[in-house]
Each structure stands twice: as C-alpha cells, then as structure tokens.
C-alpha cells in the first residue's frame, strides 16, 4: 500500500518538507531502505545509516537538514516512539480474512451476529452469544454461550472465549489467548499447612492428609473497551463476581490473571506477569516481565514493578517496586549497593579486628 509523504504526515499530524507527492510503500531501517521505502531515522545518530541506504524519503528528528541528507521529502517528528504508532498503523498488513461467515464455521442459531462480521474457517460461536458489528474473527476461534463481544473486535486464530464473558469495543486478542478459564480455587475441610505457613511463616508439622474441595468459578470475565490480550495469555473467570479488566489495559503474551482479579484502566502487563486470585490493581499499573502479584493484594494507581518483581504485600499509589520480596526500587538499589560493598567492608573489618587484637596483646 503506497502513501504519499503529505498523506502520511497528515495522518501523523506532523510537519513535512520537500515533494509531498513522493510515494512510499513501507517503512524501513535507514541503511536497508530502497528508493520506494520510508526510512525511519528519527535520531541524529541515524544520519550516517541514512546515507548508506537508498531512501528518497525519511522520517527525521525536528530541524534535520533533509536536503543535506540527500532526501527528496521528509517528515519531522518530535517523539519518535509515539510517531512509530502512527507510521506502523499506516503500513499495517491486515489479516487475510474473507468477508462473511466461512462455510465451515458453526454458528449457533441463537447467536446474534452484528453487521459486517467476518468469521474464519472452523470457528464456533455458541448459543446466545452476541458479536458486535465489524468484528473480525479468524479461523479456529471458539466463543462460548452467552459471551458478548463488542464492535470492531479482532480475534486471532485459536482464541477461546468462555461462557458469559463480556468484552468491550475494539478488543484485540492474539493467538490462543484464553478468556474465562476456570479459577484455581481449592479448600480443605480443616485449616491446611499452607494456611498455617501464611499466618506463622512455619508449620507445626502436624498436618493431616485431607482432600481438596473445589470452589467452582460460577462468574465470568468482564473486559472494558480497547483492551488487547497477547498470545497464550489466560484470564480466569471469577467465583461469584466477575474477573475485571479495565478499559485500555494491554496484556502481553503468556500472562496469567487469576480468578476474581480486578485490573484498572490503562495498565500494562508484560510477558509472564502473573496475578494471583482476588488481587486488585489500580489504573496505569505496569508489571514488568515475569513479575508476580500475590493473592488478595491491593496495588494503588500508577504502581510500577520492575521485571521479575514479586509483590507479596499491598503497594500504595505511585510506588516503583523491584525485587523479591518487592521493595521500593530506590530502597532495593540501596540494599544492593550495601550488598555489593559488603565483601570490602568485611575485609576492612577483618583488618581492623587484627589490629585491635594485636594492640590488646601489647603490655
């Protein structure tokens, strides 16, 4: 799909210079760009790479001398990463999905399918499910009974959406994400060793054999507008109240959200983050990759957890956390600093101790 520089600049709300009708077919790295490409050189450090490539048009840093860089046309952006959102959207390759319902798809007669919905091969939509207008559902997706999907959804192959799950508008779910899986919830007739350990940090060693009783997950999952869920991520349904994912929250691949969890708006959960049952996250919380949140905890708004942080207690609004167990990041670095200095401190201490004992031996 070819675009002119003027068109693209207009879409980005950015300034441009040179030949506005210069056409570009795709975005490219500066050194690898050919004459029909748009080179992405939004930082001065890419100037040299640009001259090694063959681009006639580029996206540049503000104030760049585009003529000196040998270009025919240029777009100027002040915030490169933000511009990347618009640039990549302009050149995005849409999934190859034919209009309408594929002949092999199985749609329950009681399902309500909105206008202009496309459903791919071997997808199944259950009884009483509602699919909003313009939804694109690729092949081999299953949407269970009474699930509701908002308008303009894009659901990739292999996604499983469970019974009674409700999803807002502009939902995106990537391959094999599972929404509305069973909660992991078991209880013993008598207090268990785990309960004792949680309370006392140790057990009496008197635990008796007892079987687990399952606590059923009778509620579902409620997802706001503009939520995106990555490949192979799983969101368990609630026990008696729904698991909730707030508007605008983005979830990476391989993320686990436990039953009854409530996540606020515009949160980011990076790969392999996991949230145990019944925890509540505020708005704009960021969980770095592999970070974990224990069960029944509360995280305020704007909490940020560095990668692999393990949050085991509540965290107030705005706090940046790191480590296991999670500490304020500044505190964690200070503790790490002390740890790194400890060997030298001990050496100095040894030395002092020797001098003191030598001193004591003198008459």
């Amino acid at each position, binding site marked *: 799909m070819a675009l002119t520089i003027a068109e693209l600049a207009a879409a980005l709300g950015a300034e441009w210079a040179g030949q506005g009708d210069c056409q570009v077919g795709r975005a490219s790295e500066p050194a690898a760009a050919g004459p029909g490409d748009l080179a992405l050189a939004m930082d001065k450090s890419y100037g040299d790479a640009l001259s090694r490539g063959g681009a006639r048009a580029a996206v540049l840093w503000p104030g760049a001398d585009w003529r000196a860089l040998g270009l025919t046309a240029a777009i100027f952006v002040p915030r490169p990463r933000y511009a990347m959102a618009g640039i990549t959207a302009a050149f995005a390759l849409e999934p190859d999905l034919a209009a309408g319902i594929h002949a092999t798809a199985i749609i329950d007669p009681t399902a309500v399918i909105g206008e202009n919905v496309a459903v791919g091969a071997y997808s199944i939509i259950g009884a009483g499910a509602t699919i909003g207008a313009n939804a694109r559902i690729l092949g081999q997706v299953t949407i269970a009974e009474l699930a509701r999907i908002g308008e303009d959804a894009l659901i990739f192959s292999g996604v499983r959406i469970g019974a009674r799950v409700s999803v807002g508008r502009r939902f995106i779910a990537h391959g094999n994400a599972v929404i509305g899986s069973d909660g992991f919830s078991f209880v013993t007739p008598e207090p268990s060793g785990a309960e004792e350990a949680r309370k006392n940090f140790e057990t009496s060693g008197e635990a008796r054999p007892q079987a687990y009783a399952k606590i059923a997950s009778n509620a579902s999952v409620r997802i706001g507008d503009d939520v995106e869920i990555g490949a192979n991520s799983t969101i368990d349904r609630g026990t008696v109240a729904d698991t909730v994912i707030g508007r605008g929250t983005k979830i990476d691949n391989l993320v686990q959200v436990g039953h009854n969890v409530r996540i606020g708006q515009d949160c980011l959960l990076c790969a392999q983050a996991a949230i145990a049952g019944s925890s509540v996250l505020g708005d704009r919380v960021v969980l770095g990759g592999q970070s974990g949140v224990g069960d029944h905890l509360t995280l305020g708004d704007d909490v940020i957890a560095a990668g692999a942080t393990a949050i085991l207690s509540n965290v107030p609004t705005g706090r940046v956390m790191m480590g296991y167990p999670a500490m304020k*990041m*500044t*505190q*964690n*670095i*200070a503790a*790490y*600093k002390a740890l*790194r*200095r400890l060997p*030298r401190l001990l050496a100095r201490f040894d030395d002092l101790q020797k001098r003191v004992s030598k001193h004591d031996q003198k008459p």
Partner: protein
Amino acid sequence: MVQTVRQQVLEIIAEQAVVPVSEIESDATPASLGLDSLGLVEAVFAIEETFDVEVPFNASAAEMDGFDNSSIAAIVLGVEALVSARARPAG
C-alpha cells in the same frame, strides 16, 4: 598511573555498554552509549570493586551526589579523585 585509571574506567564502561573501548569518546555520556540508569549502577559497582573506592551515589542512580556523571571524561576525573584520596595516608 593516571592513564591506568582512565583506561580501566573506560574498559568497565565499554563492557557495560557493550561497545569497543576505542569507540568511547571523552564527551560521550552514559546515555549516548546506551547505558540506562541500572546499567550505570552496575558500572559504578564495577568501578568500586576495581579501585576499592566508594562512589557517592543515591539509590536513584540518576543523581550522584558529589559525583559528576554527565560525561565519560567527568566520570574518569571523579574516579581519579577518589583513587588519589584513597591512596593518601589517613590523617
């Protein structure tokens, strides 16, 4: 001697930034070498361990009290000062 401290500091920073020592210009900043705040903290620990000094810095590495980390040249000067202070016999 002074050259040695400089060379060692450059090697530490080069290792952390994963660039050849020869590519580090004196006016480069940690950020221009791609060292983020945690990378800088690691470089500081390596400096401390190499020279047996304590670089004065707060937990938030961006603010190093009394230690100028605005450029590689400033870091080298700072480490040289710490090394020579340590070499002086205690009063």
